[in-house]
């Protein structure tokens, strides 16, 4: 048993040393010519507008929440799409129930005005 932990320990140690060596080598070997453009925050290649430490509107929270709901839905839909032809009718019905529950949740959020920007 302790033998296994030696393997894991060695693996962790090698990992740390490897990262340290690669980062320090690139620091030693590379040219260091900083400019203002290079020091900018990377925002998908667009020049950033304003400071990055702005407060975001709390209204985004609802959108994030709704996004997570549908994100989870896709996570479930992918494995389901692979196996459902083998599993038969019941699995199809189950997925429709699942999606219907999520749609009801969206309908509720819509009805309560969560999608209206305030």
């Amino acid at each position, binding site marked *: 048993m302790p033998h296994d932990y030696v393997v894991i320990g060695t693996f962790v140690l090698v990992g740390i040393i490897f990262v340290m060596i690669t980062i320090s080598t690139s620091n030693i070997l590379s040219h260091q010519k900083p400019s203002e453009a290079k020091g900018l925050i990377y925002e998908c290649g667009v020049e950033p507008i304003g400071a990055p430490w702005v407060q975001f509107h709390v209204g985004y929270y609802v959108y994030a929440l709704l996004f997570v709901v549908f994100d989870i839905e896709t996570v479930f839909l992918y494995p389901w799409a692979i196996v459902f032809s083998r599993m038969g009718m*019941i699995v199809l019905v189950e997925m429709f129930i699942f999606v219907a529950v999520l749609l009801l949740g969206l309908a509720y959020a819509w009805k309560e005005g969560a999608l209206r920007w305030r």
Partner: protein
Amino acid sequence: MLSGYWIFAPEVLIVAGAFIALFGDLLPGRDRTAAYVGAAVAALAAVLAAAGGTAGPMVFGQVEPDEIARFARTGIAALTALWALWVAGRGMPDERRRDAVALAMFAAGGGMLLTMAEDLIVMYIALELSTMPAYVLMGYRRRDVPGLEGALKYFLLAMLTSIIMLYGMSFLYGISGSTSFAELALEGSGMLGVLGVMLTLVGLFAKMSAAPFHYWAPDAYAGAPAVSVAFVSTVPKIAGIAVMARLLHAVAGDVGGLVTIMAVVAAASMLLGNLAALPQSDLRRLMAYSGVAHTGYLFMALAPDTSAGYGAAVFYTVAYAVPSMAIMLVAAEEGSDLTDLGKLASRRPLAAWSMVVWLVSLIGIPPLAGFFGKLYLFGSALSAGLVWLVVLGVLTSVVSAGYYFRVVREMFFGDEPAGIAALEPAPTASLALAIAAIATVAIGVGASPLLAALGVALG
């Protein structure tokens, strides 16, 4: 293939009812109708759960609707119906009955699934489904800052214990290679197995406010509306005890020392809960500590791994939940400070006498539900040789009479609170309270057939 699935009709019904309540403002009569629909659907679910019978392991062995689950599911659905009926009559603090009823029904659906869970993943998801709506209910007054603080505290601590629990579950899965309770093979796993079981149990201890993990309950309850406390402090507890019985039964044979751990937690909960309740002047805090104490009594029966003990514990959660919910509902009507109940007996004699019935049942005086519940709890601990625990349980029960009778004294001999407006009559709320009073007596009278069905016999 689908025929066996009828046994899940109560859960499907209660979740469908929750969706109907959620869109209740589209119904004629709006909010109030939504609450009535919720109460009716939950009542129907209770009847179906009772009539649905039992079955062996189902859905790849992930759930097992056995006798304990049947009793607990019936109790959860019935209490949810009772609560929704009261809400239909009196309403919520922010006058949004429909959301509250929908949340309660989602929580009930999760709780009912939890009582059947035979798998770590099902257990975790059901547990979250039954507690998530509770966070919203606890912070139902959206403009009340101290209330929101209590709700946030409750949410963060519950999330923390959920994470601890998941960590423990990962150990259990790592050891046995399966998430199924039936396949949790922990023999010879040594300290790692004990650690996994303990971390998993800590999550459940905290959710049921057992002694070293109870500190969130009084603050959270004291900040929340009493009507939310009525639901949150009772219904999830039934589901929690049922699933704990399942989990303990699955691991107790393989992991040594669980009896001692459960007995120590039980003793600490009984002592701390009952002693800390004595000086409380807010009914919500008092009932929070009373809840801690009652978790102790319940753990006493769970400690020895016997089916009689598990049956007795699940019976007692329902016998505890009915009066406890009813007392909080009266507090929601009258105000939750003890002095608000002053001279209740002259203002509302029926309510005052019902309160006496509930309080006496919580102390455990025959012939009420609480007496038989406690009798069998103590009996199952005695038959396992935990004499010291039973002595402690009886002694702390005597102590508990002190603070319960303080409420009674206030109702009959206290001073009338100044400047109170007469309560508007709400027939459905009164009906809900009347049902709770009758149920407290009826569960006591019908205790022996119910307990026999749960496999409990006084040895």
